């Protein structure tokens, strides 16, 4: 029992984190049909910007409410800044290119963003532990869990809700869905796809950065830590269905829980099993478990 609770909690925390990160990726793919490797760059930049802000706030003993403000602000700034530059000046010129070329371009951008970090923030690891320390631990199922990590689940639920509300209840969300469904038809209906793409890419970037910014207080933020995140969120997105929001949710739950179980029972399989699931899903249901519907084209 104790074991089950712990595995569930571990899995849930990890899943929440994965969900926030991969949501941005799946939205970008859904709307723009771009597999954005540079998403890892957003993640890392979000983490770094949040870290230096939190460390500054913490060292000067500011109100702890400001930590969370700094986290969200960092995510917004990173998403806006890099999202705008990358979409406007690089990706926009490539939409007619081969899809593989675009992936590769984002791969190059990922490398550039990674090295920029070294030059802007230096090589020393940052440890913005203040928020996590402040909230401390709570005993659940016989062992302590970090409260801050548990709030990740709350954040994931909020993000999921906002996303659902936006897509289903707002006009802009409906526009977005029509673009996801069929780009050409949307254009002919008078939707400004260029603008939709820009905004989508920025929001996707913000979500990636938010993942990094929110996880930062629990880790040692150091150069190169984003490289595993990229492929892990790829796995989540593929399992759930590329471009599907509920898919990202299910995908991250599956990966999070399976990984937690593996770490407890068979640590050697921890990495293997995630990608094995990804491969199996692709083999059985290539579109992913929750693939968005495809328009019938003749």
């Amino acid at each position, binding site marked *: 029992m104790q074991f089950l609770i712990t595995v569930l909690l571990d899995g849930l925390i990890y899943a929440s984190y994965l969900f926030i990160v991969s949501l941005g990726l799946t939205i970008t793919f859904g709307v723009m049909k771009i597999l954005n490797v540079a998403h890892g760059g957003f993640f890392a930049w979000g983490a770094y910007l949040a870290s230096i802000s939190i460390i500054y706030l913490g060292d000067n003993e500011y109100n702890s409410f400001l930590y969370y403000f700094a986290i969200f602000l960092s995510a917004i700034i990173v998403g806006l800044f890099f999202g705008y530059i990358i979409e406007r000046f690089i990706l926009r010129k490539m939409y007619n290119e081969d899809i*593989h070329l675009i992936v590769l371009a984002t791969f*190059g951008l990922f490398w550039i963003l990674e090295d920029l970090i070294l030059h802007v923030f230096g090589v020393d690891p940052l440890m913005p532990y203040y928020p996590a320390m402040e909230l401390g631990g709570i005993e659940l199922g016989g062992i302590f869990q970090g409260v801050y990590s548990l709030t990740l689940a709350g954040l994931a639920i909020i993000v999921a809700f906002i996303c659902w509300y936006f897509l289903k209840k707002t006009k802009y969300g409906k526009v977005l869905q029509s673009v996801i469904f069929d780009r050409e038809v949307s254009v002919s209906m008078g939707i400004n796809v260029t603008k939709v793409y820009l905004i989508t890419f920025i929001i996707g970037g913000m979500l990636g950065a938010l993942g990094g910014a929110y996880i930062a207080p629990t880790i040692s933020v150091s150069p190169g830590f984003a490289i595993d995140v*990229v492929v892990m969120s790829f796995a989540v997105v593929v399992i759930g269905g590329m471009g599907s929001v509920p898919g990202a949710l299910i995908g991250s739950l599956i990966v999070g829980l399976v990984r937690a179980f593996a770490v407890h029972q068979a640590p050697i399989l921890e990495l293997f099993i995630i990608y094995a699931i990804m491969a199996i899903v692709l083999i059985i249901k290539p579109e992913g478990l929750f693939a968005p519907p495809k328009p019938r084209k003749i």
Partner: protein
Amino acid sequence: MFKGILKEQTIQVGIGFVFIVVLLGTFILPEWMSNNFMYGLSRGLAVLGLMILWRTNLVSFGHALYYGFGAYAVAMAQKYLGVTDVFLRIIIAIAAAGLLGFVLGFILRRYREIFFAMLSLAFSMVLYGLLAKAEFLGSTDGMSISPSTMFGFELGRFGLFYFIGFVVILSLIFAHAYLRSSLGHLTTAIMDNEIRVEYLGYSVEKAIHIKYVISACLAGGAGGLMAAALGQVDPDSMVLWSVSGELVFVTIMAGLGNILAPFVGAIFFEFIRTYAYEFAPQAWQMIIGGTLLAIIFFLPGGLWSLFQKINPFKKEKK
């Protein structure tokens, strides 16, 4: 995009090119440069494999699977069977990768576009997950590869270089013959219109499967040669997704214009990396990333298109 690739002379020029590279590398150039040539020729094989796949518009984001599998096959053969003979090494590497490609090909041949890319990625990461965590497979340390021998004698760096040149020439001849065969022509037709090819009475899946196995063999051979040339294998520099990305990168950088392009591109890549690393150890990734973007934007045909552009006698009609 593929103009000129099937010309009769290509293969003679190719053999001449490899001869010159090997002779330069062993007699004229300093050793570090010859190392770069050696790595470039080896990696070029994997890029050639990717290029052959690309001719059907299939891009694998997980080709490091075969590259790494070939390299680890060499490592395992040394650890458990004591194999250091260079002929056996390359045969083992190619056979292992080819067999794996044959098995996975049954699944992958049904996939196209991004799904093909992602499933390849998934398979390569499965192998990575195993290698990185299993102690008996060397975990993240990988394994050392002892210097190669030939018929019981130590081969030496030069000997290995000649051998790599030999393998590359054989592969060039083979790839050339394959691309000129009806099977090879067929795959370009698949890229244009799959259904039409089926109506002509050919099995598209079978043609793709054969192509996939050939591509896997080339990548496996590249991994085997690279392992022998470097003297070390490890999952992070042989199997990780970013290695696959690098291979795709070199393919684009080289251009798809000629079967020689992969080797020119791969050698060029080794040099950028060496220099970037030496002069800007904290910005080498940025330099490689920047080169990648620059090529995509300003040289869409890859380096090979440069060679075509400077030819004053022959203007290719578009």
